[in-house]
């Protein structure tokens, strides 16, 4: 078997009572998520009283404080959704490619979505969020196939090293292509550039409603393929021997992952590393069973992205740091940690 994305389940006690351990972690995670969501609504460059928060939550928007909170509600919602989508997408990609380093950012998939949207804006006068979603999903899909094919060339198939290199090289080529698209069009340069940094600051309820169906569909596909992903982890031959249609499972699951990260990128811009970090941490908590891992990753991703957004607002008061930058600064060291932990032969 080649590099598995499966570190051993820690803790013998937890292994004896997996269900109890998992339920406990589920409660903890839900609590953390609630706390972070509350913080995201209350914390920002403007200090707000709790009474104003409650008033704003019930729909009132009187005065600056309540108006500020009212703006933070869609933002929090988008951060939760985007985090969940990216983390599930990353977990599925790690399962499909059996590769611990898979992440929509590292594999260049986000960049593909960006190029597609930039070309859409420049050449086809794309303006509506629905248009963005379709184009971004198409771009993400094309890029992920491209990177996967390059990464699996040659001896040894799609090793983590080759996939990561293929992703980085493709990202670089796509970034140049984005400059080539944008440079002659001074009028759209500003818009595209600010969109290229992933952030949830400009969230609106309209934008969220438009991607929601895509996210729901992607999530459903991903969750339904959880059992298949468990079998894929055993290796293609064994999975096929156990009656799994390997190619079908892999394609379906990858499709779900691409829809999730493409749709998210369409509203938030490219956000990296959430899909890398969260599944790894969740695997330590609940083990390698994808039926548990995927829902946990969704919750963990929502918590991480929202926390990163809050952090970006606190650190740079009165301005803010876009969440895409915060996640890269948290995720980069984590990526290095994973690389250092792996045995060289598995890379």
């Amino acid at each position: 078997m080649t590099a598995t994305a499966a570190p051993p389940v820690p803790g013998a006690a937890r292994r004896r009572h997996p269900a109890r351990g998992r339920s406990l972690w589920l409660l903890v995670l839900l609590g953390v998520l609630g706390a972070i969501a509350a913080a995201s609504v209350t914390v920002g460059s403007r200090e707000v009283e709790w009474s104003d928060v409650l008033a704003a939550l019930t729909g009132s928007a009187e005065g600056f404080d309540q108006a500020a909170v009212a703006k933070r509600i869609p933002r929090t919602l988008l951060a939760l959704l985007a985090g969940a989508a990216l983390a599930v997408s990353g977990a599925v990609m790690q399962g499909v490619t059996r590769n611990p380093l898979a992440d929509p950012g590292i594999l260049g998939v986000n960049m593909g979505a960006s190029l597609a949207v930039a070309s859409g804006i420049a050449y086809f006068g794309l303006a509506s969020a629905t248009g963005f979603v379709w184009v971004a999903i198409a771009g993400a899909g094309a890029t992920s196939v491209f990177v996967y094919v390059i990464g699996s060339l040659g001896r040894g198939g799609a090793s983590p090293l080759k996939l990561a290199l293929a992703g980085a090289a493709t990202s670089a080529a796509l970034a140049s292509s984005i400059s080539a698209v944008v440079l002659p069009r001074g009028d759209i340069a500003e818009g595209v550039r600010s969109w290229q940094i992933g952030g949830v600051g400009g969230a609106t309820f309209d934008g969220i409603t438009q991607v929601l169906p895509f996210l729901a569909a992607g999530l459903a596909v991903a969750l339904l393929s959880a059992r298949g992903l468990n079998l894929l982890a055993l290796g293609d031959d064994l999975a096929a021997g156990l009656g799994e249609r390997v190619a079908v499972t892999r394609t379906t699951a990858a499709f779900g992952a691409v829809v999730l990260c493409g749709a998210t990128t369409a509203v938030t811009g490219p956000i990296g590393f959430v899909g890398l970090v969260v599944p790894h941490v969740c695997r330590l908590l609940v083990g390698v069973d994808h039926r548990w891992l995927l829902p946990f990753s969704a919750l963990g991703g929502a918590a991480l992205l929202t926390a990163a957004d809050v952090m970006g607002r606190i650190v740079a008061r009165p301005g803010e740091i876009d969440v895409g930058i915060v996640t890269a600064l948290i995720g980069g060291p984590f990526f290095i940690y994973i690389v250092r932990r792996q045995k060289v032969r598995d890379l």
Partner: protein
Amino acid sequence: MTAPTAESSVSARTSGPVGVVRRRRVRRRRTVITALTTLIVLVFLVTLMVGRTFYPPGDVVGVILGQDVPGASFTVGRLRLPRAVLAVAAGLCFGLAGVTFQTMLRNPLASPDIIGISSGASAAATFAIVVLSLDGTGVSVFAIAAGLAVSLIVYVLSFKRGVTGTRLILIGIGIAAMLDSVTSYILDRAAQWDLQEAMRWLTGSLNGAGWDETVPVIAALAAIGPVLLYKSRDLAVLRLGDETASALGIRVDRTRLVATTGAVGLIAFAIAATGPIAFVAFLSGPIAARILGPNGSPLVPSALVGALLVLIADLCGQFAFGTRYPVGVVTGVLGAPYLVYLIVRTSRAGTSL
């Protein structure tokens, strides 16, 4: 020739005794190098002739030889000549540094622009331009220092009972991702004027090149180039894998250190002058290896290919399209078809990358 031993059948297959084969290899290598040099000279002259005003070859050669040609002396001598010389020098640096990394790390995708060195220089230069409002030399110093520092950090972080190429590449990619986000954070806060300056630098461009930018690059090339060429044989042996190389008497860690430092130095000086011209370091090595075949060290040919790439891409960027593109955009877009070509070729030949 008496009884057909294994040795004689081998030499029969390679059509001739070892001496003949070696002579043929040397001849092939010489042909390739001569052809590349001739092409560079030709494109160099074309670059000097073409522009808003066209100057005949006679005028251009006259200017290069130091004669005073009315009109041409300023346009060609002051504007186009430094630009073309910088294109050649930076191209040589990128090509040489790129192939050094690719040979050392045994992977055609492992070039300095992928594994974080360019990202480090870019982040530092953006910081220098936007936050510190430096220009010219200040930016260059920052970029060179950051390129060296980042490669040191990558090297240290990938040290765990020795450095393996695989870990070095992956950690470089992680560092690059972090640095890129730092760059975009700084850019997002930049004022309009700084932003333009930083963007021009980041895409890699020869616009406004003068002798002040060109001379340091040439100096770095003259100082570091010979060291790398001297080490080229050790590098070639390193290709066989660390264990084999040390069994063959190569001091692996030392060779790697010298090669890394040299290549990083070259790339840092070139980047400081032109900005990261995307993919030149990445493409030169494989192209040179393709032209040259297995006929000796690819170091000199890929340096030449690098120079040729930058010259041609700059010419195309200036005149081939409706808009004037900086050279980095042209070479960057070339990267995508190259990756496709890599797929097609490997799947047809069924070989490893």
